[in-house]
């Protein structure tokens, strides 16, 4: 299953500028506490870990619980130091894994 991913960040930034990165991924985030039509619990299916690396260095990490809403949205800040590539990675239950990259040019 491929998940749809949206990343929003400025294309260029001045050196030392603090920029905001917004990420959104399509995922049901099934909590494991809901009951289906057959009366049985729907098994848990969530994203448990989100990481962001910049030129290979991890700059942000989030450990998610079932209490995160469906289609997890996470926004955070980072300092633009040099031009490079962000790699975003989501992983979770049932072997879920998604990766997205975004480039930033620093002037």
């Amino acid at each position, binding site marked *: 299953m491929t998940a749809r991913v949206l990343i929003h960040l400025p294309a260029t930034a001045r050196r030392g500028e*603090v920029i905001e990165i*917004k990420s959104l991924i399509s995922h049901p*985030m099934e*909590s494991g*506490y*809901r*009951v*289906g*039509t057959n009366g049985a619990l*729907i098994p848990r299916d969530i994203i448990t870990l989100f990481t962001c690396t910049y030129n290979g260095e991890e*700059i*942000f*990490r*989030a*450990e*998610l*619980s*079932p*209490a*995160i*809403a*469906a289609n*997890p*949205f*996470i*926004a*955070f*800040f*980072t*300092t633009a*130091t040099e031009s490079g590539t962000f790699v975003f990675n989501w992983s979770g239950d049932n072997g879920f894994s998604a990766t997205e990259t975004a480039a930033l040019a620093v002037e």
Partner: protein
Amino acid sequence: MSLQMTDPLRSTANRRGFLMRTAGFAAAAGIASALPLRASRATPQAMQEAIRKILGEAVLQHGRVSLDVPPLVENGNTVPLTVSVDSPMTTADHVKAIHIVNEKNPQPHVISVTLGPRAGRASVSTRIKLATSQQVLALAEMSDGSFWSESADIVVTIAACVENIP
């Protein structure tokens, strides 16, 4: 009834006392009637345990953290939330981690975020689920080992997690 529970925050002392007692009774009745439906649910005790697990031996202090969340939400399935921490974010003094815990969802833990001085600004936004009206607590772990917190009470009119699949 849930609307009444918000009133104590804005009313005078006398009215507050009366409403608190009313709300307490209503809450007790609500929990009793909800029990057969919800076998597992976090309690304030579970929240305290989750906080203790995050803190370790450290002492939790109030302040430096701001928790931006609507006081009344219609849909508990997606509640926008922003946590900002007052910190210079330098190598010597920065926020190492931000944790969010809740009081009455099935699990107290919501999210744990790891930051560094590189973040520039200690601020994180996300969207969470809330099973019922409750308190949400944000904790910030500083590079000097201290913990700071801020809490917010949220009234939810349509709960998450409890609806059945059609």
